[in-house]
Each structure stands twice: as structure tokens, then as C-alpha cells.
């Protein structure tokens, strides 16, 4: 599998194939939820379902982006490295849709509600902060910016670690009962971040 993926990337067609699979595959969650909404299969509170769904996919893409390095080092998935930017941008993409869905479907763009939610709710402030911090990472994810920023690029993109912790906190803060799901994501993140500490200190 590893060998064949590496082999696949030797040809332009192979690279194009993998790129399309990842690019279009990442649109499947959006396509699915849109389809379900159009078919009116989301139940009594479609707004909440859509918001939760987009949020969890933003979180998953962030976690996936953070898995690229461990996957490369531990599993030899060197080919994955070139798609890390795309995966990270999908995290920002789903996070932005999540936010847009909250403002549109839950708050109806009512200024008083928007202001209140953004200033009074700790879990929303935390989530919103994570999204704000992701934006510069998205903007500077291109090769041009990487060149321009030089060493500072790495410093800036180190922000993804605190961002991931903010995202986890945002998620955990919403729980009313039953913390199994958040526990699983927390354990995965603990591994992804812990592995980096291990690389640094060994």
C-alpha cells in the first residue's frame, strides 16, 4: 500500500488522481448534509443538526491535518505531506461553514443575539477565537507566503496546536451528559500532540 502510493506519485496522472480523490472526497460531508437538508430528512431541528455536523467535520479535518506528520514518521506515508495544506484548508472551510450556519440558521443574523453570543458565552468565544486564529494560517498556507515569511512561517503555524486545544475545549464545553465522544477526540489529540513532544524531547 505504502509502496504503491509512493509509486503512484511518480506520474502526473497518479498525483492528479490522488489529489482529486482527496479534494472531492472532502466535499462528500458537505454534499451529504446538503442533500439530507433538501430532502428534509434532518428532523425537527435541522439547524442544530447541520451546525453540529459541520462543527464535527471541522474538528476532524483539523485532527487529520495534525496526523500528517505522525503518519509520515510512523507509517511512512511520505506522500501525504504534499496534501497537508489542502487538509488544513478543509478544516478552515468546514469551520467557516459551521460559523455561517450558526449565524444564519440558529441566530437568524439578529444583531442583538449575535452580539450576546459572541460576548457572553465562553464556549462560543473559545470557538470563535479558534476560527479567527485559523484564518492567518489559511492565508499564509501558500508556497509564496511560506517563502516570504521564512522562519517566521513555522512560528506562525505553530499556532495550530493551541488552536486544536481551543477547539477541543469548545466541544467539551457543550456537553450536557455523556462525554464518550469528546473523550475519544481528546485521546486522539493527546496522541497527536504527545507524539510531537516525544519527537522534541527524545
Amino acid at each position, binding site marked *: 500500500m505504502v509502496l504503491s502510493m509512493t509509486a503512484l506519485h511518480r506520474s502526473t496522472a497518479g498525483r492528479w488522481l490522488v489529489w482529486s480523490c482527496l479534494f472531492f472526497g472532502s466535499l462528500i460531508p458537505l454534499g451529504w448534509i446538503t442533500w439530507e437538508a433538501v430532502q428534509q430528512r434532518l428532523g*425537527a*431541528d435541522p439547524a442544530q443538526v447541520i451546525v453540529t455536523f459541520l462543527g464535527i467535520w471541522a474538528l476532524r479535518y483539523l485532527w487529520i491535518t495534525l496526523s500528517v506528520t505522525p503518519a509520515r514518521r510512523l507509517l511512512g506515508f511520505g506522500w501525504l505531506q504534499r496534501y497537508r495544506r489542502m487538509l488544513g484548508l478543509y478544516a478552515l472551510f468546514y469551520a467557516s461553514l459551521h460559523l455561517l450556519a450558526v449565524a444564519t440558521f440558529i441566530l*437568524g443574523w439578529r444583531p442583538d*443575539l449575535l452580539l450576546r453570543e459572541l460576548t457572553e*458565552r465562553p*464556549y462560543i468565544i473559545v470557538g470563535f477565537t479558534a476560527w479567527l486564529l485559523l484564518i492567518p494560517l489559511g492565508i499564509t498556507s501558500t508556497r509564496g507566503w511560506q517563502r516570504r515569511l521564512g522562519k517566521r512561517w513555522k512560528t506562525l503555524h505553530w499556532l495550530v496546536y493551541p488552536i486544536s486545544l481551543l477547539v477541543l475545549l469548545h466541544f467539551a464545553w457543550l456537553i450536557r*451528559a455523556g462525554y464518550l465522544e469528546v473523550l475519544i477526540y481528546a485521546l486522539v489529540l493527546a496522541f497527536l500532540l504527545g507524539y510531537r513532544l516525544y519527537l522534541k524531547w527524545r
Partner: protein
Amino acid sequence: KLRAATRADGLSTDEKLTPYEHVTGYNNFYEFGLGKDDPRARAQNLKTDPWSVEISGEVHKPGTYQLEDILKGVDLEERIYRLRCVEAWSMVIPWVGFPLAELLKRFEPKGNARYVAFTTLHDPEQMPGQRSRFGTIDWPYVEGLRMDEAMHPLTLLAVGVYGDALPPQNGAPLRLVVPWKYGFKSIKSIVRIHLTEQMPPTSWNRTAPQEYGFYANVNPAVDHPRWSQSTERRLPSSLFSPNIIDTQPFNGYGEQVAQLYSGMDLRKWY
């Protein structure tokens, strides 16, 4: 099908009903899972017949009574109530039931009975949510009311919804409905009613006392620590015009119930 119930017009709202599909498909009933669609998917085999209810504590006629005996000679009424969930969504539901006061009077509460405690069925075999090790609620689910709240004419014991017997996901065969309080007070699938002198423990209060009080009266002025209670989304909400409405004190039943709390600081007794 239930015996034809006459509508209690004076005690009913004429707001637009939430469709049956949503009333019975969007439920918080953690005994069957945490998802809103889990109860409908997983509660269908709940055995509700035979069903008995234990009446105990400060009453002259304690005992364990079969549900059909409890319902004998009871006049069922239809009551259309608003239901406001603490999660800030709401519905309008046509319940079928009878006043809790009627039942309590039959068992003759003693003079020192000050509170009524309720317990939901505890049966992990039938209720998968009670087998979960990652929940935060200690089973069985318990709730309680002060005696005057329990005796209030709005306080209903429901056995049906939309003219039919309650489906399991809505708390069959017997549940409480207290329309001026957050939904979690309206305990489902009741197996025990216990009259007591002491304020009884309640499940959500035990789980997160700073978030859920004993009274849990709907109150737009007192926010849940993590979200606002000043507005609610009336379900079903449609995507591009979310049905956001202002939440009313006591869920709009203030005229009938506010006097129960006169002199109480509702910020303290949330």
C-alpha cells in the same frame, strides 16, 4: 387509542401544534441514548403493560397500584401546552391526561407531606442508556415538585399525546407534564411517587447543581451558565427563518403560577 378526551380549553394554548412526527421523533430521554432520535429508534420494545406505580411516603393509602386501577374512573382531558426545553428549543404539544392533584388526593396525603418525588423505571436491560459508563446521570432518573406545585391544576399526568397512547419515547405509559418548568422536570415512565417532608434530590440538580436548580421554572432573565434563556427556537424550525421567539417568564403561565413563588428570589431559586 384512548377514550375520547375533551379538551380543557381554558388551560390550553391555541398556538400552532408541533407535528406528531417531531413530537415523537425529537426527544431527550437519555435512558435510550443521547441523540434526539435515539429514543424513537431504541425505545420501541419498552414493556409498558403491565405497569405498576408505587405510591409511598406521607400518604394514608400507600401501596403499589396497577396502572389500569389508577386510571379507573379518571376523566382524561386534552391539554395543549407549550414545552420549553432547557436547551432553548420549544414545542406545542396536545397531551392527554389528568391533573396530578386528582391522583394525589385519592391516596390522601398527610399533613406533613411537603414535596412529591418521582422516579423513572430503572431497567438497564430495556434501557441501553442506563448501561452506558460515560454518562453523567445516576440512574434511576428522579424529579420532584413542591406540594403546591404538584397540586396546581396545570400539573398533568399524561398518558397520551395527539389522542393516542404515549409512545415509549415520550414517556409511556405515564409521565408528568409541568408546562411552566423546563422540560427535564417533566419526568417520564414513572414507577414511583413518593410524598416527603424533605426537598427530594433531582437528577439534573445532582449532576450539575450550578446549572440546574430544583425549581427550574422557565425564566428568560436567568441564563443557563453556558447559554442564554432569553429566546427559544420553536420547532420545527425552518432553515432560513429560524423560529426565534422571546421566552416568557414561567413559559407564559405566569398568570396561573407566579403567585406560587411570591417573595422568592428567582435568581437564587432557579
